[in-house]
């Protein structure tokens, strides 16, 4: 009966998703309820329960009424610790906030907002992909929890399943819950170290406002627009309260946007090496506040500059599917 089989497997799949949250199906915000929270004794809890068992057998054998009293009082302690562990997690609200950016080899910060509602939450740990953060959440507060996921390769990286856990108050029970947000970040290729200087611009046929910051003269100020590089903000004007302006320079340098092209790189270089070089150049151009164009397999970015342009370029480089 293939049909029955299929329905069984879908049932198990649903059950597995419900139990283990393998798929990133959680839409924000997630409030932890009893159906999501698991609790099992920790190692310390098991050791303590074993001690209680020994105490119980001793009390039974020697008919020690007070032995029973002590054993059962400690059992009551273990029991109420269980409930407190549960309560410490129940009702916690999680929502995905942001995925940061990172170069391969460094850490990619994901931010998840955690709110405890009206009760303070103690010693709550969030863990995902090797990142781990433990925090107290005061009553009524919503805090960002920063998960620094270590990276090794460029590409898109999903936060994956977040395990939220706590062994508060006695460390005898560990309660945990899985939350799986569809939160992904982009890991840029690591920039090449000591990369050669930027290639020259494409002969300043276009009178675009551009300049290399260091050996250029200040030409004037224009109103700040979103995306203007921070290095070129007229901070003194901002500090005076005169408003936001962006400094404009009269360029001596290579003139025109730098052309960063995959094709111009030596063919002997590996694909990843070329990407690293291009990333280093993007960063250099950005540092120099110089517009650039970028072309690579599957990428053709027109000339531009600023935060968004830089991000677009780096993201495109991160997601280049292995050429050659």
């Amino acid at each position: 009966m293939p049909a029955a089989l299929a329905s069984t497997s879908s049932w198990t799949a649903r059950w597995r998703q419900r139990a283990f949250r393998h798929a990133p199906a959680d839409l924000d915000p997630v409030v932890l309820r009893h159906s999501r929270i698991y609790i099992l004794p920790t190692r310390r809890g098991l050791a303590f329960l074993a001690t209680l068992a020994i105490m119980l057998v001793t009390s039974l054998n020697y008919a020690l009424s007070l032995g029973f009293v002590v054993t059962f009082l400690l059992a009551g302690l273990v029991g109420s610790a269980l409930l407190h562990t549960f309560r410490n997690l129940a009702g916690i609200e999680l929502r995905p906030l942001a995925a940061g950016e990172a170069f391969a080899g460094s850490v990619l910060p994901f931010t998840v907002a955690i709110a405890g509602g009206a009760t303070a939450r103690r010693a709550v740990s969030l863990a995902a992909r090797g990142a781990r953060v433990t925090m107290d959440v005061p009553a009524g507060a919503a805090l960002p929890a920063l998960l620094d996921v270590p990276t090794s390769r460029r590409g898109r990286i999903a936060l994956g399943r977040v395990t939220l856990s706590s062994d508060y108050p006695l460390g005898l029970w560990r309660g945990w819950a899985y939350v799986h947000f569809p939160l992904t970040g982009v890991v840029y290729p690591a920039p090449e170290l000591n990369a050669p200087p930027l290639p020259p611009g494409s002969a300043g046929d276009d009178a675009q406002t551009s300049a290399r910051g260091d050996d250029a003269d200040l030409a004037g100020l224009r109103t700040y627009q979103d995306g203007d590089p921070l290095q070129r903000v007229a901070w003194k004007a901002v500090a005076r309260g005169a408003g936001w302006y962006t400094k404009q320079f009269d360029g001596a340098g290579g003139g025109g946007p730098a052309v960063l092209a995959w094709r111009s790189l030596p063919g002997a270089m590996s694909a990843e090496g070329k990407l690293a070089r291009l990333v280093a150049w993007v960063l250099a151009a950005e540092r120099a506040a110089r517009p650039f164009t970028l072309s690579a397999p599957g990428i053709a970015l027109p000339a531009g500059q600023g935060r968004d342009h830089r991000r677009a370029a780096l993201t495109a480089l991160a997601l280049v599917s292995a050429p050659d």
Partner: protein
Amino acid sequence: MAAAATVDSLRWRRPRVATRPALAPTQVRWLGALLIAAQLPLLSFVPIWVAGFGAMQVALRFFLLHRDRLRPGAVPARIPTWALALFAVAAGLAIRQSFGYFIGRDPSVAFLFVLIGIKFLETRTARDGTLLVCLAGFLVVTPFFYNQSVLAAAAAVPALVLVGAALQVLALPGDEPDFVRWRVPIARSAKLLAQGIPLAAILFLLFPRLAGPLWGLPSDHMGKSGLSDRMALGTISELSLSDSVAFRVDFTSLVPAPAQRYWRGPVLTRFDGREWTAAPRTPAGEFARIAARPVAYTVTLEPHYKPWLFALDLPAALPRVATDAGDEERAAPIAGLTRDQQLVALAPVTQPLRYEQLSILSSAYPPGNDEEAAAEIADSRRLPRGNPRTQALASELRLRYPDDAAFVRAVLQRFHDEPYVYTLSPDALYPRDPVDGFLFESRRGFCEHYASAFVVLLRAAGIPARIVTGYQGGEMNPNGGYMIVRQSDAHAWAEALVGGQWRRYDPTAAVAPSRIEGGIGRALPADDHVPLLARLDGSWIKGLQLAWDAVNHDWRRHVIGFNYEQQRSLWRNWEIDRFAPWQMVALASAFVLAWVGALLAWLVWRRRREDRALALWKALCGRLARAGLPRQPHEGPLAYAARAAARWPEFAVAFDVIGDAYAVLRYGPAAGRDDRQRERAAALARLARAVDVLPAAGALRTLPVPA
């Protein structure tokens, strides 16, 4: 996008911590506090050197911690592991030497006591901490082997609270332990324990007890005070030095007069010239049929690790287990009656036992007339060689008094007339012919001297006689209306077959009649060492002691005495005794679930209460909105309150308080820190009061807008 896919499928493993993090000094200090609390109640039950050794190690660790604190940055002081192992082995050997054996309860307790100190010295990681908490938890139970009084229970409380506190401190992450205030873990642990009490109570009542031990109890109890089935001269006087309680009696009928309080114990028939022993095998007997009104009472017997039960002379029925609930069903018999009218339990009394007993106050009973009776009588005539002067005295007296009763009277008269002294400190007697030595030379003796001399004289004259040991006397406690019988009431008297009946004779009464009427405190010379309580008649110390004993009696009956039988009877009372095991488990689970539900509901209710600030604020915002001043989405409580105060200057103070209190509650320090609780409660009260002050929305709207 293949590369992206492979990156996405990368799985990260949680990094393994290679070296376990060391415990913070604060955590070690908490563990030390737990150890001290667990060791203290045991101090008087372990050999003094064990107590000193164990306590010294804890002190040493504290000293090292202190030294580390004085020299920050230096390598923490450590005792090498091999030295600790050496300590442990040495302690084990010394304990073996001191107790004479190692596998047993008491040496194990002593070894655990020392071991836990050694473990504390080398405790470094959280795992060591766990082990230490578990060992200390077990150590809390061990003093109850020796003493289960109210005080012993109270002494265990600090250790219990500290178990919870130490677990909390161990569970704290990272560097936090240094900032914990000592009150916080204590308070939280006490709270958790208190919340667990219902669960503990359910388990205490429903967890099935055993009728007997799982494994044989070690022979640690030999030589504990109490009557034994052998008596040499000096055994009972030694016992009389003890103040400890043998049993307590609640009378349901009239309390017998002091002279009738003979509590029958082991009957000693065999005599080897020096020592009296019970007949090795005593056949089952029958109750004497005596028409008299029986005395009814309940005995709470302290465990004495011997099989016999005590009853007033003569027992009239088999003892039955007493229960607080008057259940009709008779429990299975717990003891049998021997020919010599002794009650012998089926198993040694290893836990406090309460039994109901009937007695007829009679000092004589018929011997029966079967073969066994004849053998018994023959046994009671047997006298080994020796003690020639006593034998000669008997023959001489016998010539003068051929009648048995007259002979006995003459012997008693002799004890009374001759200068015999009743004393707890008799002179040492030659092991050869001790009865001669006592009767003719020292003439100073305690009850066992008189009883054995009496029986030897009678046997020498051919009259069957034997020694009966037990207790004589008992003191009524006015605080509880019950009688206390102490070890110092231990007594030996005699029984002789005179006139076709076994009759009770107490030669001690002939020497010191006040012993029988008023206890040994009255009867002994003032310079004799008597247990304090036997002599402090009428003083306030005695009164205090009796009041305290009444508390202990109740404690024994209801808490310590809650054993297999008590539990069964309680179950019978609740009509759950016929439940199958699964029904019992279901019942217990239902109770536990009820507890879980109640506790969770309470915790949620408390959370609701926390939410009260938010509810008040929302209601206020709604009211002000209806009054024409809605809160702007970007406005915080302070800004909104300021705007409202500008609109309604009449209530500026109230708005000021509201904004401030709500800001404290919403954005102030967390409630979790227990020391902040009070602050937050005060803020909540201020907020509620200030909101109360404000008029309704309609009234607010009509107030004029200030210029």
